[in-house]
């Protein structure tokens, strides 16, 4: 097969320059992805979170049963789950009937990180649950630019979460590394979709319909010993 008909087979400098640059981008990019998704010991952890509970935000740490919620503030199914079962979960947390652990993931990219960072900042103000409900109720389209730091502050303000400390925490991305650690833990625990909910360590079967049916979810809670 003669393709070149005597033409020079290209400038070797161009060839290696291009290959070199592309290889550099790939190696640096992959390196950053791996680094960003590796748990960082230096991460600042919100006081409501617990390292041994997968860095989740914990309510009623000494109670049983234990309910773990792996979610993403930007995910529409998580909004649906929150709409169906959010009030029941919040009641468990507030009325001290179960240990409830929230794990805000960032499956859906940068705006999920801002939202999750904001959740930790709200937890510092003792307003995690308020923030949680309100953000889902006002969930914008995925990565539409609505949840920048300013957007998170504005949304939280509408939920009554304000103050210089909160704003500084959001703007600094104080807990961004913590969000990374939550995600890294989720990867280790094989959380492949959101929402994923565990009751006493047992993943709720998606076929059971409990994610989007309050009575089905309640049955599981009752079976786990909640009155």
């Amino acid at each position: 097969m003669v393709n070149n008909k005597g033409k020079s087979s290209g400038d070797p400098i161009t060839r290696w320059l291009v290959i070199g640059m592309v290889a550099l981008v790939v190696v640096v990019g992959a390196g950053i992805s791996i680094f960003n998704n590796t748990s960082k010991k230096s991460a600042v952890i919100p006081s409501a979170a617990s390292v041994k509970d997968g860095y989740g935000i914990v309510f009623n740490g000494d109670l049983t049963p234990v309910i773990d919620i792996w979610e993403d503030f930007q995910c529409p199914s998580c909004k649906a789950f929150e709409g169906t079962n959010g009030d029941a979960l919040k009641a468990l947390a507030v009325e001290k009937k179960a240990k409830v652990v929230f794990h805000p993931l960032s499956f859906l990219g940068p705006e999920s990180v801002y939202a999750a960072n904001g959740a930790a900042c709200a937890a510092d103000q003792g307003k995690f649950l308020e923030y949680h409900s309100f953000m889902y109720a006002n969930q914008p389209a995925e990565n539409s630019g609505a949840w920048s730091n300013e957007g998170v502050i504005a949304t939280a303000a509408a939920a009554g979460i304000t103050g210089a400390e909160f704003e500084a925490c959001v703007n600094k991305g104080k807990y961004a590394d913590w969000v990374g650690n939550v995600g890294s833990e989720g990867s280790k625990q094989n959380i492949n979709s959101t929402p994923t909910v565990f009751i006493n360590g047992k993943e709720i079967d998606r076929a059971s319909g409990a994610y989007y049916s309050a009575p089905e979810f309640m049955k599981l809670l009752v079976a786990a010993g909640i009155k």
Partner: protein
Amino acid sequence: MKLPNFLTETRLNWFGLIARLTLGGVIFVAGALKVTTPYKSAAAMRAYELLPISVANFFGYVLPWFEVGLGALLILGVSTRFSAFFAGSLMIVFIFAISSAWVRGLSIDCGCFGGGGQVAPGETKYLQEIVRDFGIALLGVYLYRRPHTKWALEPGSR
């Protein structure tokens, strides 16, 4: 090899350009859509249940960047033959992975262009995904056999 008359060098070079841009474009876009969401990419990789979790996570983070690089080389037309070989091989690996998920009765999205992970049992698209990847793989085979194309940065592409 004696070419049929209508397949002139020029025409084949133009076809090669289309093949190169299609193959490179698809792979580049597939990678670019995933580089910003490494968690999701890793989750899509884990959902195949083919690799140990830590290995799947590693490939989940690295593969999108690899696709971006491979796509860029094909679009630019540098080392087309080599890139086409990798692109075609990648598609064959994907076809095996998707088929294996299908055979094992998993309900997942291939996660080829972002997304991925479990889906409802009725929402799998294994056949479409396999046919698409097979078509893309054929472009890779063509370019491997005949890497010389129009408007390549490196005309006598290796």
